[in-house]
């Protein structure tokens, strides 16, 4: 697949610049585009249950968002260090940025020291193939540092800061994501109740997201380097997924993170309980084995996640749905509208 296959035109006015609550909407009142092989329909997220069937299994991500953006000082001056992934033993992957709106690269070298509050960090090495990300090491407790000094990671299109609560889904249980697993954001207790009443089952995985989803940089999409993310598929979820598939019902992932976790736990025959790191890149050539549908946001042109969407529902159907979304003025990004994709 070529990089150009992931390109489309989208006016920048279609980026959500604030949470729906700031636009006087409840979380579940954002718009929902439903894409199936027979066409598209337009509704609100509160109506999600209308499009699912008894026996379907909805799998959500239980990861909670960290205040992962830290102000740091180094020889280069003051800038931001967005923590992406906790590897453990004081090693983190992080993205140094000049500011929310100015990415980098910064003139950094292995061994450089950065300071935030009382915490010292040292640069180890850039991530192979993704030079904007650096491994850093610290003896300090960065979780405590984040509580004291961190804020949710934000990019230029979100004009004002919002509290961490705006970046948590109702499923958030296990802190660890650099950025909100945002597909779950429109879910409310009433949406969950309506799913239960419809006979839809629910299960959870944990996948801690890294910093912003990747833009494909290589001409050949499959050659793109992927960074690894921690994930956990519990036994109970693996069993429910397998039972759902055996009974001929559908597995609906809430978010690309859930697709990545479930497909990473697939052994060629069934989903197995799993705990580790995954850098699995799901594209049409690889295909999907576990999920039949996906609740997700709208992804940027050239986003690696588009290749996953193509893998689930086919390039033509997804490109058609994105034309419809642009035409109908759906909103992009973590505070934007929602998209239910059913492969039929």
């Amino acid at each position, binding site marked *: 697949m070529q990089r150009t296959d992931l390109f489309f035109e989208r006016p920048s006015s279609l980026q959500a610049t604030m949470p729906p609550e700031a636009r006087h909407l409840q979380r579940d009142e954002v718009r929902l585009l439903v894409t199936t092989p027979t066409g598209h329909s337009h509704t609100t997220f509160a109506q999600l249950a209308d499009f699912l069937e008894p026996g379907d299994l909805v799998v959500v991500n239980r990861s909670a968002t960290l205040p992962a953006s830290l102000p740091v000082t180094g020889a280069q001056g003051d800038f931001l260090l967005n923590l992406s992934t906790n*590897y*453990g*033993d*004081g*090693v983190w*992957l992080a993205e140094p940025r000049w500011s929310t709106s100015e990415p980098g690269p910064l003139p950094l070298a*292995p*061994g450089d020291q950065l300071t935030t509050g009382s915490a010292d960090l*040292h*640069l*180890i*090495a850039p*991530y*192979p*193939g993704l030079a904007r990300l650096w*491994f850093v*090491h610290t003896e300090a407790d960065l979780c405590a540092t984040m509580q004291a000094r961190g804020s949710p990671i934000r990019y230029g299109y979100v004009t004002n800061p919002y509290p961490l609560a705006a970046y948590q889904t109702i499923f958030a249980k296990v802190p660890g994501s650099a950025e909100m697993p945002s597909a779950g954001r429109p879910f409310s207790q009433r949406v969950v109740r309506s799913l239960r009443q419809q006979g839809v089952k629910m299960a959870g995985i944990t996948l801690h997201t890294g910093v912003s989803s990747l833009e494909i940089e290589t001409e050949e999409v499959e050659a793109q380097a992927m*960074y*690894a993310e921690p994930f956990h598929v519990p*036994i109970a979820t693996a069993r429910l997924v397998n039972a759902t598939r055996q009974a001929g019902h559908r597995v609906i992932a809430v978010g690309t993170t859930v697709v990545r976790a479930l497909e*990473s736990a697939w052994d060629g025959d069934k989903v197995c*309980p*799993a*705990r*580790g*790191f*995954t*850098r*699995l*890149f799901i594209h049409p050539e690889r295909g999907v084995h576990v999920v039949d549908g996906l609740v997700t946001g709208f992804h940027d042109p050239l986003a690696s996640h588009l290749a996953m969407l193509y893998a689930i529902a086919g390039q033509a159907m997804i490109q058609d749905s994105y034309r419809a979304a642009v035409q109908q003025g759906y909103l992009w990004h973590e505070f934007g509208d929602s998209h239910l994709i059913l492969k039929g």
Partner: protein
Amino acid sequence: MNKVALLTGASRGLGKVIAGFLAAQQYDLILTARGEADLKATALELGAFGGEVAILAGDVSDGAQQQALAKMVAQRGRLDLLVNNASILGLSPQPALAVYPLQTLETVFAVNVLAPLGLVQMLLPWLEQAQGLVINISSDAAVGGYPGWGGYGASKAALDLLSLTLANELRATGVAVVSVDPGDMRTQMHQAAFPGEDISDRPLPEVTLPFWAWLLAQDSLLISGQRFHAQAEVWNIKV
């Protein structure tokens, strides 16, 4: 007190990448390799991170060299990590087994199998004390059966079985042992395996950095006995 790691084959390629990752985390390092000039250059480079970098050039299959390394560990009174990375291909190009010179094969096994075991035997008291981890660097040739790779592959298959058996034998002592297939990489050894061929499509050994970052942070007894692929899409702890 800094953690201490001993790495063999540490002057270049994969060994140097792992050593650099540890140096940047303030490990004290004991490095060995055959080439003294490369080893000195590596020590100079990694010393800039601030930790201690001690070197001893020599052949790891030489018992005296192993004893000298053990003495360096004893002087520091601590060993958290042993990386058995040094290995030899045998001949370049590699001969088919039917005509493989047995004397060369003995040397391959001495370096790739007996030396790692010798070091584990000698360093065990320190590894036990630190509840340390032994990483043995393996290869897909250990399971591939690729024509021409029989000598080197057999040595790595033997090393894999040593790793698994040691993991089981040492579990009660708290010492963990894993085997890691780093995958194809653009290194001098890989070039020797494909003499005259263009190997520029293979990634540099730095490609394995995220894997080491992940592996070294795991509870070592949970991963002991496992065999990992550093370039795999998923690094899983058996649950």
